[in-house]
């Protein structure tokens, strides 16, 4: 299995339209400067200039793939992404480092937990949140060939050991079957969701797991049939409750006139406690064990009725 860096290098060496850029954040692309020469462009700590320049390069037919920490990329340079990439519809690929809980001990300034909400609001922007390097590296060539801009949540390096069948844009991966509850997640939290599935099995709760992969385009055709036939959908994400997977699923359900109970697990109106990743997960209640516990509590407290609506779940009525 090749790494992200190796696949990017292969793609760039095979296609001289590809330009690798960074705002002086080389963690994911350390080996590329000598390989790509002048097609490796580091603008320094200047995210706005990086995005503007990427738009200019794309106007000239290049395919820029830019790298910065997810917060600085999506927040500092947001208007440049919206105006120069979004309005023009240019195929600039945006790679955000240490998104969500992966910012570890950096603190709230570095917590990209509204990035999906922001990026999916830009017309024609694709939003990809792979669970691991395997998915990212394998899907990367397709992303680079797409005519649309794309935001990529750069994943943790630990493999999820999931057997994959799809590497397409806009397709989810149905990772595990289960009838009582369907857990929807993205990014490295897939690992915790699989842990939760195993724990729930011991308590005779059958949990399906979907690796959503793409927040936009969202695979509602693949996901909604699974969700509507299980007793409960759980959205599990290291993102603000507002605008992320819970919002996306809710919108898809309402739009399709479906009424399904949804348990959202996300960061609600707050930033998370900084620390090392395992400690953050434990403190914030995002380990597989916590997830299983939340789902079990839900089953114990309120036997599920298919008549409950998304809206009631969201505001906690009933």
């Amino acid at each position, binding site marked *: 299995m090749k790494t992200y860096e190796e696949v990017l290098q292969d793609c760039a060496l095979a296609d001289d339209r590809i*330009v690798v850029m960074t705002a002086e954040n080389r963690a994911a692309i350390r080996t590329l400067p000598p390989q790509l020469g*002048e*097609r490796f*462009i580091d*603008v*320094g700590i*200047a995210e*706005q*200039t*990086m*995005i*503007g*320049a*990427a*738009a*200019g*390069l*794309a*106007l*000239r*037919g*290049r395919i*820029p793939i830019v790298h910065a920490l997810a917060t600085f990329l999506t927040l500092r340079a947001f*208007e*440049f992404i919206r*105006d*120069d990439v979004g*309005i*023009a519809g240019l195929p600039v690929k945006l790679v955000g480092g240490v998104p969500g809980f992966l910012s570890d001990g950096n603190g709230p300034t570095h917590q990209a937990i509204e990035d999906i909400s922001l990026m999916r609001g830009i017309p024609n922007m694709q939003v990809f949140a792979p669970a691991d390097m395997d998915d990212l590296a394998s899907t990367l060539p397709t992303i680079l060939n797409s005519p649309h801009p794309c935001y990529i949540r750069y994943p943790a390096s630990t493999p999820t050991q999931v057997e994959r069948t799809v590497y397409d844009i806009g397709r989810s991966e149905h990772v595990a079957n289960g009838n009582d509850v369907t857990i929807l997640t993205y990014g490295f939290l897939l690992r915790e969701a699989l842990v939760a599935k195993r724990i729930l099995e011991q308590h005779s709760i059958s949990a399906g797991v979907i690796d959503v992969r793409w927040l936009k385009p969202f695979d509602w055709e693949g996901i909604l049939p699974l969700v509507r036939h299980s007793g409960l959908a759980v959205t599990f994400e290291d993102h603000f409750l507002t605008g992320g997977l819970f919002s996306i699923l809710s919108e898809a359900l309402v739009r399709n006139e479906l009424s399904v109970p949804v348990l959202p697990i996300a960061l609600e109106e707050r930033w998370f406690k900084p620390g090392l990743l395992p400690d953050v997960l434990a403190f914030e209640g995002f380990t597989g064990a916590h997830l299983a516990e939340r789902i079990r509590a839900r089953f114990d407290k309120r036997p599920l009725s298919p008549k409950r609506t998304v809206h009631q779940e969201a505001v906690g009525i009933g």
Partner: protein
Amino acid sequence: MNDLALRVREHIIRMATDGGCFIGASLSCADLLVYLYSEVLNVSPDRVHDPDRDYLLLSKGHDVPALYGTLAELGYFPKDRLKNHLRTNDSIYWHPNRAVPGVEFHSGSLGHLLSVGIGIAMDLKLRKASNRVFVLLGDGELNEGSVWEGMLTAAAYKLDNMIAIVDRNEFQANIRTEALIPLEPLSPKFEAMGWNAVRTDGHDFEALHRAFSELPNESKRSNEPKKPTVIIADTVRGKGLPGIERRADRWFVNFTHDEIRMLLEELHGNAQARLTSDTLMVR
């Protein structure tokens, strides 16, 4: 060029009614755009997609009536199309849109197109192409930090194919630049950032000719340190209409048809227009 500039100003004035436009900043850069398109830019109506053309980016997009007037006069699109200003059946509005032939990129939010120009200039360097990128900046726009980011990057990447032009009309939206965030001395600021700086009168075509002849050309490029260049063009906001020149309250205007007729007379050196419209609008 004087005749062309006069006709461009007529177009600008005609766009200042039925919804209005940013007349002051448009009139201040009208001569600059006329000069660039007549004497400097290697581009023509039949080459708007030619990869070997020179690029002009309008970073302070609200002066687009001057660009549209110039492009229409030079045959990039029919002059009649200017009557579509603010009509939803076309794409001619208060800021530039690429749907109009000759417009390289949209703008509106200030401080964006220096960096877009940097990307274009970087690609030209990668291809060892000789075409150049010109970016017209407003002086008020220099308040934006992204412009200074871009200055550093353009100098770091030795983009001697990039020429910024500052329309130094001494006003930002509603106030004199020096009364708010003083910019002077401006040339030394660019020079300290690693740019060549040339200062010129922005309305005198002879002076502009002298200034632009100092741009690095092919032979100079090989011998001199490779630097981007800024041309700081001293201009007058509202230039051509003495009644509104240097007036802080004539930034965005929406005149009556009678006032437009009087302003066209004033432009041609006849009686000064009597303006009654309350035209101080903050946009």
